[in-house]
């Protein structure tokens, strides 16, 4: 049971609203100590694990150019473009992005989306602008809700698209693990069996996006009434 003390640290730390970076660091060090290593060994293992994971934050490299473009009006331009398309609604726009993200991820093009490069500068402002076109100035709460939906669509499109591509990390992991356990499986057949889930994901989340449009409309009407 001792190895689980790290999980306990995470749960208690998150519940007490301690800063997550502090919590996770503490959990990593405690887990190492629970494995009966000396403090020096634990710090070394932790340092190695952190440095070995340097590929994780690579997306931040997009920020200098995204920031530069933002100060030149990139978000405002994204809004202007959407405001000219009268058929655009928040739900339809996000539905189109969901389809695009799933399809490109299924082709292995997972780096075509992402929160820093696509959602913050383009998708979120467009989704907000589409709602503004129809309902005028939005209350802050609605604005935050639309942004959260924009971030969610990027995740869902990625997760339930990428597994259809045969050379993606998860397929390679499955194959490697099963190989070690004595099963030889073809990546293509694993990818094939990711398709039913991908279709379900599109139907389920797509329906929710259509409902989002309705709920935004109801919210806008509800907001008008007391004012009148």
């Amino acid at each position, binding site marked *: 049971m001792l190895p689980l003390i*790290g999980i306990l640290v995470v749960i208690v730390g998150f519940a007490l609203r301690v800063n997550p970076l502090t919590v*996770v*660091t503490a959990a990593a060090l405690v887990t*190492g100590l*629970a494995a009966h290593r000396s403090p020096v060994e634990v710090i070394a293992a932790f*340092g190695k694990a952190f440095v070995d994971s340097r590929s994780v934050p690579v997306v931040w490299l997009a920020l200098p150019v995204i920031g530069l473009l933002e100060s030149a009006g*990139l978000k*405002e331009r994204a809004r202007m473009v959407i405001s000219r398309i009268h058929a655009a609604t928040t739900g339809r726009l996000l539905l189109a992005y969901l389809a695009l993200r799933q399809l490109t991820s299924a082709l292995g093009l997972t780096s075509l989306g992402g929160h820093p490069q696509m959602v913050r500068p*383009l998708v979120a402002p467009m989704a907000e602008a589409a709602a503004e076109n129809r309902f005028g100035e939005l209350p802050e709460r609605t604005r935050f809700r639309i942004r959260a939906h924009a971030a969610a669509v990027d995740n869902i499109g990625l*997760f339930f698209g990428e597994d259809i591509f045969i050379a993606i990390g998860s397929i390679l992991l499955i194959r490697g693990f099963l190989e070690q356990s004595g099963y030889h499986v073809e990546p293509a057949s694993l990818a094939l069996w990711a398709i039913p889930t991908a279709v379900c994901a599109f139907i389920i989340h797509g329906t929710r996006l259509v409902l989002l449009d309705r709920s935004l409309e109801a919210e806008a009407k509800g907001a008008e009434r007391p004012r009148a």
Partner: protein
Amino acid sequence: MITFEFVNVLMGLMMAGVAIVNLRDRTSAKRYNNAAFWGLYAVTFLAGSFLSDFMNGLVVIAMVLVMAIGKLGGPPPEASTRVQREASAAKWGNRLFIPALTIPAVTLLGTLTLKRFSINGTPLVDAKQVTLISLGLSTVVALIAGMLMLRPPLRAPMVEARRLMDAVSWAAVLPQMLAALGAMFALAGVGPVVASIIERWIPLHTALAVVATYTIGMALFTIIMGNAFAAFPVMTAGIGLPLIVHQFGGNVVIMAAVGMVSGFCGTLMTPMAANFNIVPVALLELPSENAVIKVQIPTGILLLAANTAIMYAFVFR
């Protein structure tokens, strides 16, 4: 040969730039803390491959201590007003999208073509890291395109990077720290312990119970670990292979493929998957830390139910 070290150098230079801009900003009350935090982070990129594991560990711990004890300052206010930006947007028009879309375009092009080039028999890039190297290259190309087009002062990209990095703040490091936590979990053997607990406490007599335990277990374990990749070997060795495949004669491909995406349903619902669920909260300036997770939970639960149904329907055919 261009290796992943190239990306490390770019990251290190950028973090060092962010630290320097912070250090020079006399209006910021926390400028020394922010400069120390990003400066130490820069060290892990620029020197991480050359320092000993122990030294790297100390640098990372120092970074976290600066944040936990000294606290970090927030981002500076935006230098331009909305009216200015709207005027600029009208002036530049859709050309503004070109540098932004250069990132995915060059990443794609690089991923598809760079592997083919070699100089005197040595490949131009490390084939295993081609996507990340292409992504690194694409941001450099995009930045050059943006600078040539907009002609801002030379320090502008670093000033902007600092504004955005300080807005994301410590959340920028959290995904990497969680990856390190995963490695420490593996070292301590957390996975097998969890699998043995599940086996001991859940009655697994029917095929449906076994399938549901596997899919829901994948999701729950992913929620705890923040990563379906960590959950998969544990749950599959503990339940998938011995029970679904051996005892009930299920198909190993369907079990594995649907099992993995069941884990992804868990990824939608956990703050431990910080790069997907917490980083966008910071990037989109949302007030509630769980704003993105809240939106994703209904889809996560419904899709987990769908996965359980898919696996039950097909795995025993």
